[in-house]
């Protein structure tokens, strides 16, 4: 057949035509690109426009409803305000409130139970309506409304009653003294009553086109692509200096890094630059790349309800058998900070007297021997018919954690402990599997309930075990009357000195009893292009979008 075709002159003409068409298509497309040149990067670098790149998409902008910590918190800080916020030194600065209530200014009663909060009279919502105490009371109403899908009540259930005294004063009476209450307010952005009252908040259009009091107004969103904000010229904290602020969704980490490099993205934070790319990123021209302290601590969570983990000596031996430093260096390129507690070491309440049991396989083996776990024929220790074998679970596909698990697996094998990796998608592992304490161990990063408050009762007191009908997040099923008592006392005590002593003791007990093994405090590697001004890292907020009104571009 082919020889016939070869004899067809018209067919070869046809081939030429076809080839021409093909190459035209193939060539013109890149040519079109060359024509426009670096159009995209230039557009992104427009004066006054700043682009934040994120790898998760923000979909719900109602600050009381959204679930995604990070990307949606970023939108919250851009569009909304709470009564006060933390500055980078950890000092509270008044935002919607006129001042921070204290015993000195009469804001907090002598018994600590009555809070009188004065609000700024000059604040306006983005639609021009005045902000008043009615909005604050409405926000508290919504938080307690059983029909609204509120994510968390942020500790406001400690309030017995609340009322608007006048247009710019709110009074709250607490059931009992509750030290983290000041953080409850810092985490509660105020929502507008005049827009949300009387409608179904769960499906309100407000959730996707929010109206706040914050430095920027929500301008538009292209689903799956980006959100655009415009400055609020009447912002009570001073008009923002940018002309446009954009949160751009780039699902793939490598692509986001590429866009940061080409200048299509100015700020790369939240999940941060992957540690693997840290060295490379530091060498990028016109960029500042540095680690930012994060409240999240990485743990191995032991399920104390399982027969393997009932003896604290087993949990401690496992802690000593694991090369924590090797883990940090090999998997995370030395970026995270080692910690011995559920708090990052730079936290004011961190117990700096804690003694590191260290990485000591010999001692770990001895401790297991002492506890009666003897090596069987298969090399795995056992006691009373229970093998010292367990699974470790985390989100499947998290490369760094998968590497860490293999490291831990090897460490443990050396002391006769068998660990199997059992990872699952996030929607599975963090569901009932975690909440109902069905796991053996978890590899997980968490911060405190109301960070930076050191209260940790929700995760350690015996009444907070969901698997036993309790209310709280004590998924490790840890029970200790002394911890119960200290946690209750710590939450009630207001003086920082007194509290420090209580939390020092709690951390000491936890390190000794080891219901969860603290490994390190995360650091987010934040990348900021040099054209951005006014960007200041803040370890007291979960993200660094705490002062967007001060940001500038050059």
């Amino acid at each position, binding site marked *: *057949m*082919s020889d016939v*075709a070869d004899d067809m002159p*018209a*067919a070869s003409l*046809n*081939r030429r035509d*076809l080839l021409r068409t093909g190459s035209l*298509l193939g060539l013109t*497309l*890149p040519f079109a*690109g060359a024509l*426009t040149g670096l*159009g*995209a*990067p230039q*557009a*992104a670098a427009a004066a006054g*426009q700043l682009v934040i790149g994120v790898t998760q998409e923000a979909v719900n*902008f109602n600050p009381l409803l959204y*679930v*995604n*910590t990070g990307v949606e918190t970023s939108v919250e800080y851009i569009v909304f305000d709470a009564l006060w916020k933390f500055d980078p030194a950890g000092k509270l600065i008044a935002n919607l409130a006129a001042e921070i209530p204290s015993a000195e200014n009469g804001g907090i009663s002598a018994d600590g139970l009555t809070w009188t909060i004065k609000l700024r009279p000059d604040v306006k919502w983005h639609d021009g309506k005045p902000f008043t105490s009615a909005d604050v009371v409405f926000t508290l109403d919504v938080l307690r409304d059983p029909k609204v*899908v*509120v994510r*968390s009540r942020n500790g406001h259930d400690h309030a017995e009653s609340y009322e608007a005294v006048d247009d710019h004063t709110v009074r709250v009476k607490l059931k009992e003294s509750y030290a983290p209450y000041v953080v409850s307010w810092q*985490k509660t952005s105020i929502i507008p009553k005049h827009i949300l009252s009387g409608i179904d908040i*769960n*499906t*309100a259009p407000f*959730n*996707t086109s929010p109206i706040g009091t914050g430095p920027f107004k929500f301008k538009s969103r*292209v*689903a*799956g*692509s980006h959100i655009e904000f415009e400055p609020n010229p009447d912002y009570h904290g001073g008009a923002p200096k940018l002309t446009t602020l954009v949160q*751009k*969704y*780039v*699902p*793939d980490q490598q*692509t986001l890094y*590429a*866009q940061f*490099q*080409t200048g*299509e993205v100015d700020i790369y934070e939240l999940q941060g630059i992957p540690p693997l790319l840290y060295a490379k990123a530091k060498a990028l021209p016109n960029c500042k790349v540095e680690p930012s302290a994060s409240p999240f601590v990485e743990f191995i969570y032991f399920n104390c309800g399982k027969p393997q983990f009932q003896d604290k000596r087993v949990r401690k031996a496992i802690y000593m058998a694991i090369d924590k430093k090797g883990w940090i260096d090999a998997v995370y390129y030395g970026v995270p900070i080692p910690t011995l507690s559920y708090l990052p070491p730079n936290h004011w309440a961190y117990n700096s007297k804690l003694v590191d049991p260290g990485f000591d396989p010999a001692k770990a083996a001895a401790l297991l021997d002492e506890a009666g776990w003897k090596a069987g024929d298969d090399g795995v220790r056992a006691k009373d018919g229970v093998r010292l074998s367990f699974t470790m679970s985390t989100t499947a596909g998290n490369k760094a954690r998968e590497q860490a698990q293999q490291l831990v697996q090897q460490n443990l094998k050396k002391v006769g402990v068998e660990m199997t990796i059992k990872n*699952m*998608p*996030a*929607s599975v*592992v963090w*569901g*009932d599997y975690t*909440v109902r304490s069905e796991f053996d161990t978890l590899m997980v990063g968490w911060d405190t309930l*109301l960070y930076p408050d050191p209260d940790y009762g929700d995760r350690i007191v015996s009444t*907070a075990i969901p698997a036993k009908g309790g*209310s*709280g*997040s004590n998924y490790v099923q840890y029970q200790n009357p002394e911890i119960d008592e200290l946690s209750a006392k710590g939450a009630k005590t207001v003086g920082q000195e007194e509290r420090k002593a209580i939390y020092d003791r709690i951390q000491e007990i936890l390190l000794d009893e080891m219901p969860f093994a603290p490994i390190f405090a995360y650091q987010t590697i934040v990348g900021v292009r040099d054209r951005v001004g006014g960007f200041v890292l803040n370890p007291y907020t979960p993200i660094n979008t705490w002062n967007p009104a001060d940001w500038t571009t050059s």
Partner: protein
Amino acid sequence: MARFLINRLLQSAVLLFGVSIVGFALMHLAPGGPLAIYTLNPTVTAQDIERIKVLFGLDQPVYVQYFKWAGGLVSGNWGYSFFGGQQVREIVLDRLPATFLLMGTSLALALVIGVAIGTLAAVRRNSVFDYATAIGAMIALSLPTFWFGLLAIFFFAQTLGWFPAGGMVSIGDGSLLDRLHHLVLPVVVLALVLVAQWSRYTRSSMIDILDQDFVRTARAKGISPSRVLVNHGLRAALVPLVALAGLQLPLLVGGALVTETVFSWPGMGLLFISVLSTRDYPVLMAILMVGAVVVVLGNLLADIVVALVDPRVKLHDE
């Protein structure tokens, strides 16, 4: 014809009903669920999660949830997203244009180039061109798309700076030229695989036809070789390819999971990936149903078109 259509549409309705039941059941049978994402937020306690479960109606038996959802769908209410409370119909339809643009361009391009390459390879069977395109197609088909996508970003966006590294428009721009500029890399990556498929199918179909008696007769009658190739050969060879086009039609709506993710293309594929990870049941079900409808329609369309262009095929009134 009318009876055939009515029959097929009725069958399709039953099929879609079955798909919805199986899809809904599988979604709920799978371990985990939409509430898991709350657990990762440290400020959310287990009792908060319990409260939210009731509000979402997830504490009710699965069949009750199914009938609530299906009843809504029949009356035109696709439900509300668990995360954000936005109307599901709005969420899904929002993504259609982006996917349509990306997949439409890629498919059209792949069709033209693929058929051209396939035809030439068939005419010049066992030539250098034939072998080169065969090897090229095998490589293109075995390349993982994400790898090829990342490579394209590395060279053409990061190193050379010719194209943007993902996205559909530059923020604050959105002109036609800007859109085309963003379209190039993902289209090339997608088209590469599609061209490979189309060229191979066209080649084998064409070879079948060129060996047939009627082609030989046409040549013997002295019709010019190019007319034989186009009017007799290609026309007949394209018939089986119409069926293939019908099967690829759902891509226009379903999008490309990997390519859309790598290039941050705001289409259906990207939406599916993100709601799959959050298990946003109402949105997941909507995507499943839209996908099922398009598959059924694509097949129906292919059958009709084949019957129209191929006199040997008759539509039976079953």
